């Protein structure tokens, strides 16, 4: 553990509260005392919610599931950055030792027209599901699993496909992008299948359908600022966006 092991923090939390997708939201300020630096950011929210419940107030809604950094469920835009100040981690893997005693922490939901707020800090990311449903799959005969190495794949392709497949679909790329663009997410999903032999059959139709679905959801346009790559908890590379651009050109002008 870091040097801050065992110490406690007093914090001011400014949290976005919003009743539902239609209501106008606003910030609510909470004072927290005795927050252990060993807590995760979500555990700090658990403490706050227990306090709110014991006071007879409504708990703050926020998304979370595995709390191991692999499910892509947690979100939160913390002090101006998705998943907070650390690089390469999700909010559940962010620990309070990343903050100082007396800090004011501003917590907002992902902001995008395509991610409407459900309540407080929880946003509806089903736009991502609809993009996947439009073409982010392969049609295979089900049955017994093939023997390993039955289909030979070059190591470099396998590595790049794996890198793209590391995307957990949390939406930090959209939240970080000044244009609310979903290019990093969609390009990762297009890439992981375009790089592998199993993905070849539907390759051209897939990229066209997924880009069309992305545009239809109302995400913004990419301007290559690179904010998505910098904030991605899984380190998805901008190379995927260039690949998706090539894929769409290849599918359009064959």
């Amino acid at each position, binding site marked *: 553990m870091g040097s801050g092991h065992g110490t406690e923090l007093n914090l001011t939390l400014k949290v976005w509260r919003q009743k539902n997708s239609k209501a106008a939201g606003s910030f609510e300020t909470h004072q927290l005392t005795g927050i252990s630096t060993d807590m995760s950011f979500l555990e700090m929210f658990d403490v706050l919610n227990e306090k709110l419940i014991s006071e007879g107030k409504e708990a703050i809604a926020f998304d979370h599931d595995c709390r191991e950094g692999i499910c892509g469920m947690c979100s939160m835009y913390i002090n101006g950055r998705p998943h907070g100040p650390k690089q390469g981690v999700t909010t559940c893997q962010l620990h309070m030792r990343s903050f100082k005693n007396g800090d004011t922490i501003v917590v907002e939901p992902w902001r995008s027209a395509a991610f409407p707020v459900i309540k407080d800090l929880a946003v509806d990311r089903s736009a991502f599901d609809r993009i996947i449903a439009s073409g982010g799959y392969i049609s295979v005969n089900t049955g017994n699993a093939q023997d390993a190495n039955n289909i030979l794949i070059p190591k470099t392709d396998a590595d790049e496909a794996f890198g793209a497949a590391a995307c957990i679909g949390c939406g930090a790329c959209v939240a970080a992008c000044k244009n609310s663009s979903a290019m990093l997410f969609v390009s990762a999903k297009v890439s992981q299948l375009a790089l592998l032999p199993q993905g070849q059959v539907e390759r051209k139709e897939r990229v066209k359908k997924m880009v069309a679905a992305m545009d239809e959801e109302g995400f913004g346009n990419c301007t290559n600022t690179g904010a998505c790559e910098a904030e991605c908890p899984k380190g998805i590379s*901008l190379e995927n966006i260039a690949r998706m651009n090539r894929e769409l050109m290849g599918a*359009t002008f064959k």
Partner: protein
Amino acid sequence: MSQGFLKSSIGKKFVMGLTGLFLISFLVVHCFINCLIFFNDGGLTFNIGADFMAHNWLIRAGELVLFFGLIVHVIQALLLTLENKKARPIGYAKIDGAANSSWYSRSMGLLGTLLLMFLIIHLVHFWVKSRFTGLPGEDANGNENLYAVMQETFKMAWVVVLYALSMISLAYHLLHGFQSAFQTLGLNHKVYTPIIKKAGIAFSILIPFIFALMPILMFLGIIK
């Protein structure tokens, strides 16, 4: 089919990148011709180049294509900006942009607007005179004397300051735009992308520097 491509988010940025690269190629030609003033021969060599550019029909036709490219770049940028604003109707209260991207990559619209304003002033200074309202006579070689207009214009301190500052805008616009265009066109490569990025930085500093040098050196009387 290809119409669908141009309407897609990727097609739109493809147009931005392609017109951007086209405008970059124009900068090279413009800079090369202007460098003829560095012969410091009272503009005789420069006027040969300027006269050729003003009267060669192929160049004049290219000029139309250039204006078209510029207009497409500007209009597309405006449309994209409006779309992007719509994609985030409620903004963040606190943004730490510096943590994940450069300020100039996030400010292409602002830098572009400054450049467009500069361009209008610049066109009034030189292009309108050269093409429409006429130049002050001919030089010793019998070429139209655009150089004389430069000498007059760059006597004014505010003009020189405006040009120099505008070239800083250009440098930052290029610093993002040059490498961004290649990424948009899908030209991303483990070996070549780092080279493109370095070449882009060199280009973005060198070209605006040379452009800025011209009014400054003429104002100071070093180029006569």
